[in-house]
């Protein structure tokens, strides 16, 4: 983890409300692993005050750059996407846990993996797909991407290009299958080819994915969101209910959690 001043190199609108920011962040880019995030300070004033957590979509380790997919939902993210090119942004990162990889201790046997993205949740999964592709023992990667409409399949080409198979669904049928990404997942799980599922998207979606994987006996990892103070595990602001009681910190114990580590019922109660 470092605090790094990062020049904003480019900012490209990729969908209504969505931008890809490119930043020069050599130190962070060199450490970053898929699933981790950066904590970004909004420049200039104390209003807004706090940093904003943003997943790393792709580090370009060679050039020392980071790509962030940012959705302008509120004041902070709006100010971020409107930041003039050339501004130095203050980033803290890389923070949090990464997705455990096939071949690693937790997933030594995994050969076929499913990446399940909902909307914006695609960001860390692009990084993950990229990482998987670059590994010596390449697992077979199936990418599932769902969104409300075609418009909101943000950065889907980046995702698709890094998967061995790729499935798209939209709720309004404007692209791919009509329906939710979880409908596609049902079919995939039924085929019984997935050794592990990685997911990121709206909480309700992830809760469903977690339940389906649990029922199918497949390992599942999800990337979670919660409001944050410090981002480094010090303030206990970012608590989410843990399975078995108590809380875990999204910023340090997560954002990537094994799905069975969370108390999904309590989580759904709180939203």
């Amino acid at each position, binding site marked *: 983890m470092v605090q790094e001043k990062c020049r904003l190199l480019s900012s490209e609108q990729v969908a209504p409300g969505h931008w890809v920011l490119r930043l020069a962040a050599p130190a962070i880019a060199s450490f970053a692993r898929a699933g981790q995030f950066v904590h970004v300070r909004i420049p200039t004033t104390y209003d807004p005050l706090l940093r904003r957590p943003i997943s790393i979509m792709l580090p370009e380790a060679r050039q020392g750059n980071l790509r962030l997919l940012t959705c302008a939902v509120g004041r902070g993210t709006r100010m971020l996407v409107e930041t003039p090119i050339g501004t130095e942004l203050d980033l803290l990162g890389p923070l949090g846990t990464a997705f455990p990889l096939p071949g690693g201790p937790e997933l030594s046997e995994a050969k076929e993996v499913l990446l399940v993205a909902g909307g914006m949740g695609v960001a860390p999964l692009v990084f993950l797909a990229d990482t998987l592709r670059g590994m010596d023992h390449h697992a077979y990667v199936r990418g599932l991407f769902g969104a409300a409409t075609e418009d909101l399949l943000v950065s889907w080409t980046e995702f698709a290009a890094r998967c061995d198979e790729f499935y798209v669904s939209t709720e309004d049928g404007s692209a791919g299958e009509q329906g939710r990404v979880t409908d596609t997942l049902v079919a995939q799980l039924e085929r019984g080819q997935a050794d592990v599922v990685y997911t990121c998207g709206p909480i309700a979606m992830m809760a469903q994915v977690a339940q389906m994987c649990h029922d199918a006996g497949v390992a599942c990892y999800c990337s979670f969101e919660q*409001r944050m103070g410090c981002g480094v595990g*010090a303030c*206990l602001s970012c*608590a*989410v209910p843990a399975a078995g009681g108590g*809380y875990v910190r999204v910023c340090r114990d997560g954002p990537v959690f094994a799905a069975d580590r969370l108390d999904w019922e309590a989580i759904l109660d709180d939203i």
Partner: protein
Amino acid sequence: MTSERPDMSVQLGSLRLRNPVMTASGTFGFGVEYAECVDLERLGAVVIKAVTVEPRIGNRPPRIAETAAGMLNAIGLQNPGVDAVIAEKLPELASYDVPIIANLAGESVAEYVQLAERLTACGYVAALELNISCPNVSHGMMFSSSPELTGELVAAVRRVTDLPLITKLSPNVTDIVPMAVAAVEAGSDALSLINTLLGMSIDVARRRPMVGNITAGLSGPAIKPVALRCVWQVYEAVQVPLIGMGGIMDSHDALQFIMAGASAVAVGTASFVNPAASVEIIGGLEQYCCDHDLCGIGSLVGVAHS
């Protein structure tokens, strides 16, 4: 310049700090969380998250919300309990060359006494800060709203420890001065001013409070004027050193507190915004002393009163 560096040290009871900048309890964890990007050994002291007798899981989420130039928190004193803190948290922090100040939160005089005994005995701790002003648990502010209870509590803890004793007061009172006087008369070596203001925020989209606990503690630049006023008022009423906090973001803010009467300052919310804040503030204060030919920071304490 070839002249000597200004004397930045400050005395809190029997404890001498190398400089007046410490972390504020609850905003810096057990110190080690920030060790990768903050040089802990530069700090005046690290004040750790509140410790309770039993483990506490804390309040239901969401626990924070941002406000204009501020933030609300209702963590609810989550911590693993005093035994686990001593066994699992303090040894690692103690490996750094920086004084550790423990922040104690009890529900009764007996609990505070028990905490003080355990923390004094463990040997890791350089001073005790009595948190009698947490707005985020029921009865959290009971002691800090009454001079009698404050005095009784401080006196009881005073009997069981020789460590420097700091009492941390709440701004959520009609008059903070009687609480300060009671704490000092009962043996407090220093006072911390201030804990968070009691506030809340409403989520208009969901038509309910933003934070799970409903009310929460307000911190950050928004509260700095209230904190400065408390330091100012208390400085005129007591003789012990004051530790000022509440919205300190940079050395200019720290100077405001020192000029209002604080001998030391604590950096809270600023660490979230800028982890380097506390170290930058130390540098800024030293620079100010050099620029103004001061032999030490102590000569600035309370100057705005004259």
